[in-house]
């Protein structure tokens, strides 16, 4: 399998698993355990309702990303497929956190409902708001 095909397949599988997981979410204890929906620092500051409000605003701001699949792809984009396609939540969280940090370093920021947030965590909120 060519490298490019391998990566694309990996991402699609990961996204598929992620989306299935997301449809099964039904309470806070579950969403908090899901790293794709869990902007680590923001969720230590804000309650779920506020995160969802940020998520709703992000989807209005970026209507082209207004779907679970697109958001999940955007969140996991750049993260090695092997790590998104696993149940190792701690590892996934770490990878997402690294991505958030990189967002801040490289200036991939937005102001949503007044919050200066990274693109990735804004997408996490958006995904949460759809779940």
């Amino acid at each position: 399998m060519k490298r490019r095909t391998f990566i694309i397949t990996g991402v699609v599988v990961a996204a598929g698993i992620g989306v299935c997981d997301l449809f099964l979410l039904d309470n806070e204890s579950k969403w908090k355990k899901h790293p794709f929906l869990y902007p680590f620092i923001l969720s230590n500051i804000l309650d779920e309702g506020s995160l969802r409000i940020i998520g709703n605003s992000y989807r209005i701001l970026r209507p082209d990303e207004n779907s679970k699949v697109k958001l999940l792809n955007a969140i996991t984009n750049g993260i090695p497929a092997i790590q998104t396609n696993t149940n190792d939540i701690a590892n996934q969280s770490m990878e997402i956190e690294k991505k958030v940090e990189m967002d801040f370093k490289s200036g991939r920021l937005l102001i949503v409902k007044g919050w200066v947030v990274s693109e990735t965590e804004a997408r996490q909120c958006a995904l949460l708001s759809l779940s």
Partner: protein
Amino acid sequence: MHTDARNLDNGTVVTGDICIIGAGAAGISLALEFMNSNYQVILLEGGGFEYDDRIQELYNGKTTGQPYYPMKSSELHYFGGTTAHWGGMCALFDPIAFQKRSWINESGWPITQETLLPYYKRASVNVDIDNNDFDLKYWLKQDPGFVPLPFDEDVVWSKIWKFSKPTRFGTKYRDKIVNAKNVHLYTYANVVDITANESIQKIHTVTAKNYAGKTFTVTASYFILACAGIQNPRILLAANKQVSKGLGNENDLVGRFFMEHAEFKSAELWLYQKSELNLYMNVQPRVRAELAIKPEKQAEFEILNGMVSFTPLDYAKQMPSYIQLWNTPDPRVNEEQSRKAMYRTSGSLMHRLVEKFKSAESKKKHQAFQMTLRLEQSPNPLSRVTLGDQKDELGVPQANLNWAFTPLEKKSIRKIYEIIGQQAGEAGIGRVRLMEELWDPNDETLPVTTSGGWHHMGTTRMSTDPKKGVVDADCKIHGIQNLFIAGSSCFPTGSAVNPTYTIVSLSIRLADHIKDLLGASRNV
């Protein structure tokens, strides 16, 4: 020496070498510099030694534009001036404040920070700060509890403030001035006119009046106007019997470029882990830091200078803005309202009791902090002091103030918080939230809760070019040989720093200059 001018004979002529008009931070600092010299100093103060509402009424006027404090209560009119309600905050104007910045209209001083540094050192004595060490590293060594926020030092830095007691110039220097042999203080001496020679190149006399109906004149070799940023231009504009535009106003600059520090609760810092932010609180030994953006970044983003202070959010939320509290013409009422608001902010009796039993550590640590920005104002010719139609009781037209901003202020505020938000995110310590008034990037207005710091600057700005400034680099009015201005009305830009310490420094520098001039003329 002291004379209550209400007891003078009408028509008295007083003579001295130097006449200083106004006895606030600038005027008193100037007089102190001449004490025990061979020069006779006449110091004129419009009020007495205590607050007098009828005297304060002479400062009444109208405001337009951005809501401002009532004119009558925006400065104090008695010996010691507005230092009577000074907060005591002292910091250096940064080097960038003096520089020409291409993105800020009419920026740039004809002097540098380096010029002022020796005078800042001397001013430390006047304002009772024990030394002039404003270096962060020095203070970090003094107290291990001082921990700066872990931000990129090339982007955001922590600027040190030192706090005066604060020095009330009226109280501290009254005896010294009154007992000085060569300084003659006249209280109840409101300057109502300035008279020049025929060619308007030299001032002959100033005329002073009071409610007792007494009018007297002062002649001197040099005159220094030291009545702060609203009254200085008012006196110049009102001195219009020889020149209809007023003195020093050939280029229509007197009163223009009024600047304040725009201050408002503009963002919040939410921390992942609770913290004291000890370095940023006002703690013993009366030192604290505020966040500021590095000059290189100000240039990169083409923004104004601003400084951010922190207050625990639960306290800050209960505290109304100063523009809401300081809303009556009587400064005493406003001060009382502010004091009561601060008391209420500390919570109910039960709350205070509960707080008493909390551990010291838990009392100090907070998750959320209000960030208040003090922003320098972009010089704007439409932000100005003019003469009103109404006259005060002594016959001088009242001063009207139009406080006006440019789009650069709002742009700068948003960018400053974006930068701090980015730093907080990158450091992984928390997140920043901008207040709703800042959400719309197309909205260029400042919220009505924007307060000023009672810092009146820029209205007789300094420039080597008479077409761009009222005074030259020595604070002398262009085209007039012996009329000088002391104080913040000479500032071409206002930095993001409270002005008193710089006012005193600049006044000491002016005193040295006048001494040189007097020395030279006596040696001729």
